[in-house]
Structures are given as structure tokens and as C-alpha cells.
């Protein structure tokens, strides 16, 4: 228990420090700091709706963060979670719309799976480019993000377009593809169970299996790992494909659980937040869900804050970036 306390302490200090720093800025801008922070931190817990909203954000945030931390363990940086999520959403919507008449027992798994496979493919491309040509994955994953923006625009304004909507959106997917609700009002879909199971599975994989060991070894020193028999290149590919699958899953869940259709912009800011979560958790897959929940709370609070107090949501983003910075700094302090 003592070590748990000792590991959490730097995080708490980091949070306090960043809140303090941002608080000064908020006050300087002439806003009410106290009410601002109240709104940010407590909105999630004041109403059932607030809490559900937080959980709904928690799902894609956790998956995006894992999509970053899994390759990070192997030493690779996947910045393509956005694109992987988008193509996951596209595939899920495509299947959901094309086969909209199928019963749930068939359609739902298909929809989810379509997103996972599409995301995995979107991770396979940079993985293969890395494997075959040694191309830096930071660049290739980012470039594919931009390609996916064009793709989703294509799909959302194409034959499936919902002409009554003002913003590029598709018609809804078949009811069979909807994730069953756990709670109907406020709406909490069963994707949360899926997300938690997946997160647990990833943790067990990396910490207890030989595959997970090889991932860790690859990230610690790819050359040494290779010399001692680990197929490092295959590890890189595998980690990126798995990451793509995770982000793709986030895409299908958003489509099947939240929107029930494909909306341009569904990827929101989940990628950047996912990266921040992954970095704050320092690549530790067990910490990721907890940090993700915290960030979800902040995000829900941020929109409320902008609505009620007119403080721009970016303020919270700055807070989150500062938490990251302070956590990283605490690492340095601890070393000395």
C-alpha cells in the first residue's frame, strides 16, 4: 500500500501544480477561478447524466490511449489513432448500413468486427512501411490520419448521406447494429463493458505473457532483443496492427453505441487526449484506464465550463498538457 501511495503522490502533485499554474492564468483573464475548477472537477459527479457522459468519453479515450501505449512499449510511436478510429467508424457504418436488415446477433458483431479489422489495416500500412522500408512511423501514421479525413468526407457526403442533416453525416445503421443499452436514461451503452475487458486483456498480455515480454524487450533495446532471438520487426508490426485494432474498435463503438451513424468529426480530440493519457500514464497499461477516467472528467467539466462560464474549453486542454509536463518533470526530479 505504501508503494501505491508513493507512486500516486507525484501525480497528485503534478495535478495540483498544473491547476495552480492554470488558475493564475484564468484569474488573470478575469474569470472566477473557484467556480471554474468546481465546474471542471464536479460536473461529472453532480448529475447521473454528467457521470454517464464521462463514461462515454472514457471509452474512446482509454482505447486511444492503449493504441498509443501498446506500440510505445515496443518503442514505436503511433500517432495515427485518429485515422485508425475513423476508418474503423467508416467500416462499422458501412457494414451497419449495407446489412441493416440483419438481426442483432449477426449484425452487431459484424459491425464491431468491421471497425476492428479496418483499424487494424490502417495500422498495418505504416507497420509494413516500417518493416519493408524502415519508414519512421510517426510520419506515416500522421500522414494516414489526413488521408482518413478525406475518406470520411467522401463517405459522409456520398450515397449514404443523410440529406436532412446540416453537417456531413450518414443515414443511421440498422437497428441490429446498435450496441445494447445498459441504462437507457441517461444513455449508457454496453461498449463500456467491452472497453474495460479489452483494457484488462491488454494489461494481462503485456505483463504476463511471453509475447508481452518480447514487446517490452523490443522497446527496451531492439538490437539486443534481436540478438537474443526475438523477431523485432514482427513485434513492431504486431504492436502497430494491434494498436490500429484498438483505435478501430473505438470507432465502431462510437458508431454502434453513441451516434448510430457515421458523423464527420466523430474522432473529436480523442487522439491528442489519448496521447496525453498514454504519456501521463508513462506507458503503463494498468494506469491508463485511471488516467483516462480523470481526463474524461476534465473534458466533461470543460464543456460545461465553456457553456456556463464562457471560459474556452482550450483552458482545460492547457491544464491537461501542464499535468503531463509536470508528471514528466517529476520523473527528472526523482532521478536526482
Amino acid at each position, binding site marked *: 500500500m505504501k508503494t501505491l501511495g508513493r507512486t500516486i503522490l507525484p501525480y497528485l502533485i503534478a495535478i495540483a501544480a498544473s491547476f495552480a499554474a492554470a488558475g493564475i492564468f484564468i484569474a488573470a483573464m478575469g474569470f472566477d477561478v473557484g467556480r471554474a475548477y468546481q465546474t471542471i472537477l464536479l460536473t461529472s459527479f453532480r448529475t447521473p447524466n454528467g457521470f454517464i457522459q464521462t463514461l462515454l468519453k472514457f471509452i474512446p479515450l482509454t482505447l486511444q490511449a492503449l493504441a498509443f501505449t501498446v506500440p510505445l512499449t515496443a518503442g514505436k510511436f503511433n*500517432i495515427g489513432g485518429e485515422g485508425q478510429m475513423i476508418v474503423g467508424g467508416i467500416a462499422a457504418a458501412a457494414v451497419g448500413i449495407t446489412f441493416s436488415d440483419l438481426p442483432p446477433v449477426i449484425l452487431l458483431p459484424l459491425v464491431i468486427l468491421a471497425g476492428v479489422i479496418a483499424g487494424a489495416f490502417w495500422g498495418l500500412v505504416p507497420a509494413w512501411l516500417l518493416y519493408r522500408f*524502415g519508414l519512421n512511423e510517426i510520419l506515416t501514421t500522421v500522414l494516414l490520419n489526413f488521408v482518413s479525413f478525406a475518406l470520411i468526407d*467522401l463517405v459522409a457526403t456520398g450515397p449514404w448521406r443523410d440529406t436532412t442533416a446540416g453537417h456531413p453525416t450518414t443515414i443511421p445503421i440498422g437497428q441490429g447494429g446498435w450496441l445494447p443499452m445498459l441504462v437507457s436514461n441517461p444513455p449508457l451503452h454496453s461498449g463500456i463493458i467491452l472497453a474495460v475487458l479489452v483494457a484488462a486483456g491488454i494489461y494481462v498480455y503485456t505483463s504476463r505473457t511471453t509475447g508481452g515480454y518480447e514487446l517490452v524487450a523490443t522497446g527496451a533495446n531492439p538490437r539486443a532483443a534481436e540478438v537474443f532471438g526475438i523477431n523485432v520487426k514482427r513485434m513492431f508490426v504486431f504492436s502497430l496492427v494491434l494498436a490500429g485494432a484498438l483505435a478501430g474498435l473505438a470507432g465502431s463503438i462510437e458508431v454502434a453505441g453513441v451516434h448510430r451513424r457515421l458523423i464527420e468529426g466523430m474522432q473529436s480530440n480523442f487522439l491528442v487526449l489519448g496521447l496525453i493519457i498514454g504519456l501521463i500514464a508513462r506507458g503503463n497499461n494498468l494506469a491508463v484506464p485511471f488516467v483516462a477516467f480523470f481526463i474524461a472528467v476534465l473534458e466533461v467539466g470543460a464543456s460545461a465550463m465553456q457553456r456556463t462560464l464562457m471560459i474556452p474549453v482550450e483552458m482545460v486542454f492547457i491544464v491537461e498538457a501542464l499535468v503531463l509536463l509536470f508528471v514528466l518533470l517529476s520523473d527528472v526530479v526523482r532521478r536526482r
Partner: protein
Amino acid sequence: METLVTFLRLVLLSMVPFVLASQGTMLGGRTGIFNVAQEGIMLLGASLGFLVSYQVGNNFVGMLAAMAAGALFGLLLAYFTTTLKMNQFVIGLSLFFIGVGLSTLLPKLVIGITLSPPLIPTLPEVSIPVLSQIPLLGPILFRQNGLVYFSIFLSLVLWYFLYRTQRGLELRAVGENPMAADSLGINTVRARYWTAIAGGALIGLAGAYLPMVYTGTFTEAMTRGRGWLAIALTFFGGWSPLTILTGSLFFAGVEVLAFRAQVIGLAVPYQYLLMVPYLATILIMILTFRKARVPAFLGQNYDREKRNL
């Protein structure tokens, strides 16, 4: 012919953000600092440059503000990596977040949330006397805004500095083998700091170029990935100023072509054309991956007191 001249003029116009951002990346990279925050710094440069120019009424001051912000980010990058020895990619990503966040926060604070953002005047053309009268080449090369000339001049100066001066030799050594450079009395810390700062300033300037030349205003995510493309460009330009300049021309060419194709209204849906610059970049990376000559210690930090293992 008319269209060719217009096309080439546009290419030279469009290459500037690439040249500036890539040279800035290259400069830091030559001492071993691998900056990945370009997208954030460019957005911040665009945002801040626009806001300052709007408030002060002078584009040049706006540019200076953007450069100052970029320089600050470069300083932070140098400090966290060189002095505190933190991981360069993680710090770069963190700075990227902060840059992006600030770039959307600042306009909201200064201008507020509005449907019709204010405009600033775009950069004027500067005609070089006599030379701009040359048929064909004249309008392309010698009737451009000041930053176009600056970019070309900068590239030449950087090339000469790196390869034909003593300080350049010493600077490149820092990125190739900082232990060796240090053991010969070369101040590796100072080299890293100044290249990161100068590099950051250039990247900030690259960002400011966007509102000041293209749209006259700042819009969210207006860099459209150019910061990331600049990294790719630096790689396939072999971390060398002249090849980066030619590479930028090429990138700009692809970008302009794609845009042109949209305007002309080809039978292809425009979204495919949007993808072209990014897919082209991947293709170029594939074709040139063998040749990339990267500074040996790129991305790594050097600690003099690290026990010799």
C-alpha cells in the same frame, strides 16, 4: 505558357512554409535534436502572428512575435532534452499539444468567439528591379513576397555555413558524435541550444506565413499537416539545406497541382485530390529511404558524466 508561369509562381509561393519549417528542423537535427513539435509551433505561429499583426497593424511585427514564440518553444525543447535529459519525442509531442492548444485558445481570448473573424492584409509582392522584367523567369523568381526571397537566401546561407566554415564543421560534429566534439572543447550544449532556438523561430515564422499570405486570417488546424510533412521533407532532403530547398519545391508542386485539379474540376471527387499530398509524401519516402543520411546522434541526448559503459 501563361498557366505554366502562374503555376510556377504559385509553387514558389507555396514552398516557403516547407522551406522554413524544414530548415528549422534540419538545424536542430544537425546537433542531434529531433524536433517533432513543428505542427504545434506552426499553428501557434500562425495564430499569434495573425493576432499580433491584427492588434498592431503590422505584419512584420506579427512575424517577429511568431518567431519569438517559436524560439521559446525551441528553448524549452533544448532545455528539457539537453539539460534535463528527457526523451526528445515525448517532449516534442508535449510541446505539440501545448502549441495546438494555445493556437486555438489565444484567438478566443483576444477576439472572442465570432462567426466572422477579422482579416489582416496579406504580404505584398516585392518586385526586384530589372530582373523581374525577364520574360518567364522574371515573374516567377523575382516578383514574389519578401519571405520567398528570404527562404532561398536562408537556404544558401545555411548551406555555406554548414559546409564551408569552421563553425559549421564543429556544429555538424555535435550531431554526429557529441562525445568526440565535447572532448575537443566544442561546446555541445551551446550548439544544441542555439540551433533549437533558431530552428524554432524559423518554424514559427513558417506558421505565420499561412495567414499572412493565404487567407488573411487564422483558422483552426490551418496548417493541414504541413508541420509533419516538413519532418518528412527534412529526412528525404538528407538533412542538407540545398536538397531541402529542392525538395520543398517538389512538395509545393504537388500541393499546388492537387489544389489546381480541384479548381479545374476533374471528374475525380475532390476528396481524392485532398489525399494526394500525403500519399505522395509516403511514396517519396519509399523511393528515397535508402539514401537518407541522418546525423548519427539524431534524437539522442548526450550526458558528459555518463559512466563509460
